């Protein structure tokens, strides 16, 4: 035994254990996110039971089983459960019972020992709503203009029919509100600014001024008319939808009436087959990726966040790629070993090591307040005191992250350049090329994959970075996407939403953390997947490159 220890076998195993632990942690973590993120969209069966705690009136409960755990009796008693004995383990289930508008809490823990038999009512209905989260209950009747048109069994089919009929109208309203009114507003804003510019302009004559003023006023009136028209159209649609109503009841017997406009997606999970559920699942997932957030971001989709993340990283790539690549070329092709190169290398290392929040502080102070403020004074004076670029904006976020990811691009490109055999350079120079021609014509094309690797890694890093963005332009809810149909189409001065910040915001800043949690997992899953795919691609490209040059230099 002592010899065995002396030889060191157990220590080797201990070291191996550290690797095993790391592997388990990484894979477990990614698996945990994947499992929780994916299961959220699966329509779970609605369970109903009677819950009777000692000394309290029994209650009826309908909902989805959200989580199950066992704990000691004492711990349960401390959490407010009534128990006969505290000396044993008890199991509790968390039920998502929804109906935030009629009940106080939508997530409630129930002890298994007080539950009656579980059953799954066939006609239980789950409504995804625009407000108040999900509804769980039963459909009683369908009304049109206040008249009951269907009740009981027939009600569901009629409801689905009417819902399908009204869907285009709801979408139309969404389009009017989001796009058309937005466009008119943007044009109105332009006219308003033109008026302010005119008022501040002292060079033009009185006649010209009156003339221009009149023209602008006419333009303004026209736009306001358009605006009113749109509003009328929307109101008309709203009225038409309001004619259709459903009356539902919760399992406790509360009656709830909903207009068709309140409902996002109705379903009866207990009647769905696995195929139905799969179709539903895919639809839900698509809605999540392509939809707009609702209810303080705890429901709905994450399209603006995806959009913002992508745009921000793209703009960042435009800045960081030339800078990083040229700096890397300087380091590996031009610079002579000496104190200057040592300093550049130390700078690169330090840029990589400086905490990201420091970049955020720098970005806020230097880009937003200093540069942005100066640009506002020079070019957007008519909008002051409302800042244009003197506040958080996509542009500043991109620039800040470009600084942050600079070392990634430099290191990766430099590595690629150093792997290109010297014979290629010598051959090129021997044929009479200047150094610049040698670089641009032979070396750089060969190093392209390395640059792409660096860029991919930089994008992956930027996509996951949140702390600096919180200071330079990320918001919890951006009213407008940074790209739209109004000139100049890409609005780099707008603030934007970001996947990573969305996770932080919904998970930690929202009023109803429990309701938002599945969404956070789903968002996290998408972010993690994007980053893993980007990284693995980069790794694959790099490995292929290494193999290739290993073969060539042999």
């Amino acid at each position: 035994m002592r010899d065995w220890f002396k030889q060191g076998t157990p220590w080797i195993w201990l070291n191996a254990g550290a690797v095993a632990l790391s592997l388990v942690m990484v894979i477990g973590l990614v698996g945990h996110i994947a499992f929780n993120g994916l299961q959220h969209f699966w329509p779970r069966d609605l369970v109903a039971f009677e819950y009777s705690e000692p000394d309290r009136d029994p209650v009826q409960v309908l909902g989805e089983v959200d989580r199950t755990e066992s704990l000691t009796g004492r711990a349960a008693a401390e959490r407010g459960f009534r128990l006969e004995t505290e000396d044993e383990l008890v199991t509790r289930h968390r039920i998502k019972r929804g109906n935030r508008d009629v009940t106080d809490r939508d997530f409630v823990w129930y002890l298994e020992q007080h539950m009656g038999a579980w059953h799954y009512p066939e006609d239980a209905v789950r409504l995804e709503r625009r407000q108040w989260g999900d509804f769980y209950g039963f459909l009683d009747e369908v009304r049109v203009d206040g008249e009951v048109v269907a009740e009981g069994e027939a009600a569901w089919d009629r409801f689905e029919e009417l819902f399908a009929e009204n869907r285009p109208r709801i979408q139309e309203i969404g389009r009017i509100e989001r796009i058309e009114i937005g466009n008119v507003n943007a044009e109105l804003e332009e006219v308003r600014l033109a008026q302010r510019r005119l008022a501040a302009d002292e060079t033009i004559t009185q006649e010209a001024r009156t003339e221009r003023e009149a023209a602008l006023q006419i333009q303004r009136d026209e736009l306001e008319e358009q605006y009113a028209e749109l509003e009328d159209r929307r109101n008309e649609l709203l009225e038409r939808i309001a004619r259709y109503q459903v009356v539902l009841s919760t399992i406790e017997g509360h009656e709830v009436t909903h207009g068709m406009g309140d409902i996002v997606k109705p379903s009866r999970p207990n009647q769905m087959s696995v195929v139905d559920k799969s179709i539903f699942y895919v639809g839900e997932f698509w809605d999540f990726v392509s939809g707009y957030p609702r209810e303080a971001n705890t429901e709905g989709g994450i399209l603006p966040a995806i959009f913002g993340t992508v745009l921000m990283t793209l703009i960042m790539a435009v800045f960081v790629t030339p800078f990083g690549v040229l700096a890397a070329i300087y380091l590996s092709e031009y610079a002579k070993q000496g104190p200057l190169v040592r300093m550049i290398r130390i700078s690169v290392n330090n840029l990589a090591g400086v905490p990201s929040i420091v970049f955020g502080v720098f970005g806020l102070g230097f880009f937003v307040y200093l540069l942005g403020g100066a640009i506002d004074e020079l070019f957007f004076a008519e909008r002051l005191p409302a800042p244009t670029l003197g506040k958080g904006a996509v542009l500043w976020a991109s620039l800040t992250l470009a600084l942050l990811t600079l070392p990634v691009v430099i290191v990766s490109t430099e590595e690629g350049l150093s792997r290109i055999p010297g014979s290629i350079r010598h051959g090129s120079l021997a044929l009479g090329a200047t150094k610049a021609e040698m670089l641009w014509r032979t070396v750089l094309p060969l190093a392209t994959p390395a640059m792409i690797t660096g860029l991919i890694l930089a994008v992956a890093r930027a996509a996951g970075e949140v702390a600096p963005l919180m200071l330079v332009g990320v918001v919890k809810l951006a009213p407008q996407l940074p790209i739209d149909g109004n000139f100049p189409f890409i609005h780099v001065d707008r603030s934007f939403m970001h996947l990573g910040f969305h996770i932080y915001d919904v998970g930690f800043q929202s009023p109803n953390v429990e309701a938002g949690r599945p969404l956070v997992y789903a968002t996290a899953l998408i972010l993690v997947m994007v980053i893993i795919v980007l990284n693995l691609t980069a790794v694959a490209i790099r490995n292929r490159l290494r193999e290739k040059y290993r073969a060539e230099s042999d």
Partner: protein
Amino acid sequence: MPTAEQRRRLRKWRAVKDWASKGTIATFGIAVIGTLVLMFVYLFSETVPIFGSASMEPVTGYEAPGGGNTVHTAMERYREVAVRFTEEAEAIFFDPNDGSIINREALERTEGSQVTSYATGEARSRLIGYGLDDGRAIFARHDYDITYPGGQRTITPRISYVADTPEPLEVFAADEYRLDAIGVQRGRRGTAVVGANNERQQLRIVLFEEDEDFLTGAVTVERKVHEVPWPGDDVEVTQILMDTTMRNLFVGGDDGRLHYYDIAQMNNPRLIASERAIDQQAAEDAGEQATVTALDFLLGAQSLISGGSDGSVAQWFLTQGDDGSRRLTRIREFDGHEAPVTSIGPEHARKGFATAAADGTVKLHYATSHRTLAHVDLGDDIAIDSVSLAPRHDGLMIVGEDGTFRYLDVDNPHPEVSFSALWQKVMYEGRNNPDYVWQSSSATQEFEPKFSMVPLTIGTLKGAFYAMLFAIPVAVLAAIYSAYFMSSRMRTLTKPTIEIMEALPTVILGFLAGLWAAPFFERNLPAVFSILILLPLAFVAMAWIWSRWVPSSWRQRIPGGWEAAILVPVVLLVGWFAVTMSPYIELALFDGDMRQWLTEQGINYDQRNALVVGMAMGFAVIPTIYSISEDAIFNVPKHLTQGALACGATAWQAMATVVLLTASPGIFSAVMIGFGRAVGETMIVLMATGNSPVTNFNIFEGMRTLSANIAVEMPEAAVGGTHFRLLFFAALFLFLLTFVLNTLAEIVRHRLRRKYSSL
């Protein structure tokens, strides 16, 4: 074939292009240094003003506008209008820049009466009171109406009366005792005037209690009179101050003492304590009577500033002893004057004040930071009578005994910062003991900002410490194994996994730590600790089983270097076992609930604590430490180990004695870089702790780190303010810390590479 001329031009053009591209590329290369330098310079330039001091510049001087003796001066916030109140109870509004009179208004008083005393309320309340010799008091306020006719700012000053009537208020009117000292205040309960007559030794509070009918909104005023016991037989009252809550009354006497009354129940005012404000002995040695010559509230009416005839300046406020008794405590002594302090001018929005003395000196002080920021000597010939600060603390008005006015510009942007305010325990208003506190903002205006960097620094170190405690063993051991013992096929699987681990966004780690791990740890606390203990034991046990018990035919099927893969199920098994056993351990050892048990042992438990942060942040820095130390170990020249093996060492012995020793500088630099990362990590700490700035190393409590603090407070900090610059200071601190760590690590690694190549 181009002609010679064309070829020459082409060559020239090519040379130009070559030269241009070289220039461009070199510019970008050097711009990398430029970026880093720019960051440093910018952060530094935003930080440095907080360490600057204040200045006072005399602008102009003039004879008293309107003549007569001045008792009090004040300015409005734009410094366009100033006011002086004369001994004859007249308000004269004038332009502070040239002394030209704008408006004058005599306060109403009874015919033939003489002013005998005066008082002011808290500086920003703009209240003034006069005591008259017929036992009546005037109580008025100077107001400024700001209008913008034609976009131009116009300020119209006026006088309004506090108790709704311009009639003087009756204090000792029935007996016609003169008011030798007066104190005025307006609070939620209404308006109060406190008067004292030294001859009859009478001290009286007259409260005009306002009662608003909540239906009609009509206000009824009731006059209530409360007699207050005289502070001492041979005392003459010189100063009276009542705070805005109308619960505490402070009286300064000519005996150099401060008398504190509890008047929470006004019909039963009690003298609680009399404290010596002035060092009597020193004054007696000088053959003088030491008296309190100036006394005023700081912003918020919690702190008193006293000035003595010996030139001393001190801050006082009420503290509560261990037995619950309240007493007036001398908190700190400021750098005083040579001559008697004649006047105190508190700031309107901060805890600063100016003091002036009879020898013509003026000093600017700040209470919390215990600093005396600026000092100006106007010369002996102007014995200063009164000093007052502009509402935005950017101007100072001085009145000399001879009636002349001096007007000064003040530049005092960051008085809150001093070494003691940032790094030492500070006695804050309303607290009973000095403490380290970070609390930068609050809802009320009277709030005293508390800028101690200690809790944040401790929090940063605490988080990094627990993270390193978890990360170093795992990362270094894993690096040793992968660099030396692992089979190359296993390496191709491990490497990308670790790279993904490095690439995982910290916001994901933070979210899992805060929303999943924190509640999980809370429920399964025994599981966490049993995993930490069981895992290493299980690894060694597995090694024993594998080498002694498993038949060699099995063993040979799996080649060496795959131990880690064999241990993966062991990790899972131990994890599952520990979680399953957790409730039973709680039942057996901790009365069924470990968290509760901890609380009963006197250990605070927060759900989001350093344990959770340590694990999550450890997870984030493991790949950093791992890849650098693996690199260092892997690159140890092979002939060293071969030598050791040839001498009969086992693989492990060669590793432990030769390789580790050679690679230790590399591992050290890996740890430094990892530490740098843990110190600056923001999102994990932000999400996995409660962000409460506590000053301890308790693993079960949270913390607030410098970086998380920046993320939380930066968006709300006023641009250019002290708080804003302090956050820049925190960023600069992080920048420099990581700069030092990274540069050191880089130098160590550079030397190591040279050593390897020479070996």
